[in-house]
């Protein structure tokens, strides 16, 4: 009987390893380091800022990184600039209108050109980018780093895994109705976005 039970439990363990379920990672960062940076390089002025109000969930299977799906959301009212007045203008109705459009998001539907080396996967993420209430299908390069059992090192007294997502891509102001065609000598048409976020999957 004892031997049979051991075999049963061993089989369950083996099956669990073989068919490990995808993990869901939560990107609300208790340390507040997750951020999305933005850079606009116009002929007369360069604007550099960031937003740390990152949230969202991503489903990732370490055995099948290509099946990753999820959504990352940035709270528009956390868009920050070093100059308070400039920041006020940026968040205001003429530019980002954060009261009316409180979220900027990217919803990833599928990955193309997936390449995995160890814990690092690079791919082209196909999804929908939404800003100021306008959604556009986009393909952006992403890098996923799976850090197994590293959650405890980042958040004490917690066990689990971490997933780091990095991405760098550009959007056009005019595509998302961000005061299109105005002040282009000071506020460039192209906005370079940098995403560096870590999600946690607690056990």
């Amino acid at each position: 009987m004892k031997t049979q039970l051991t075999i049963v439990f061993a089989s369950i363990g083996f099956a669990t390893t073989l068919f490990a379920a995808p993990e869901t990672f939560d990107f609300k960062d208790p340390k507040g380091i997750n951020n999305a940076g933005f850079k606009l390089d116009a002929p007369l002025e360069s604007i550099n800022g960031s937003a740390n109000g990152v949230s969202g969930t991503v489903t990732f299977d370490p055995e099948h990184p290509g099946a990753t799906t999820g959504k990352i959301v940035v709270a528009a009212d956390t868009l920050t600039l070093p100059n308070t007045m400039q920041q006020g203008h940026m968040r205001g109705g003429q530019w980002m209108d954060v009261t009316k459009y409180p979220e900027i998001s990217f919803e990833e539907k599928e990955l193309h050109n997936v390449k995995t080396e160890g814990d690092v996967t690079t791919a082209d993420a196909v999804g929908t980018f939404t800003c100021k209430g306008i959604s556009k299908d986009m393909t952006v390069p992403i890098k996923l780093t799976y850090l197994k059992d590293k959650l405890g090192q980042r958040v004490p007294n917690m066990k689990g895994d971490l997933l780091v997502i990095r991405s760098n891509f550009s959007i056009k102001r005019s595509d998302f109705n961000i005061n299109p065609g105005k002040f282009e000598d000071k506020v460039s048409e192209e906005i370079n976005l940098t995403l560096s976020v870590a999600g946690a999957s607690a056990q």
Partner: protein
Amino acid sequence: MRTVLRALALGLLIGAAGFWLATGANRGWTKTSVPKKIVDDVTGIEGQTYEKKFVPGVDFLAAAVVASAVLAGASFLFGTKNNPTQSNT
């Protein structure tokens, strides 16, 4: 009064330029906070926090130039002191 206003204008201009130079000669707009990089040891993510700090920019310099020009201009409202001339006759 005329001299005092002109001295104030010059002092303001030199003081503002000195302060601007001493705080890094920022050629952009005045900043009321500065970004500070923080790195997460586990994930390697580089984040940013903002520290409250006043860093004068070119708009600060322009305001100082305008203010000193107003002071210097105001000095012309005050006439020169007429010293009584002495006659030898």
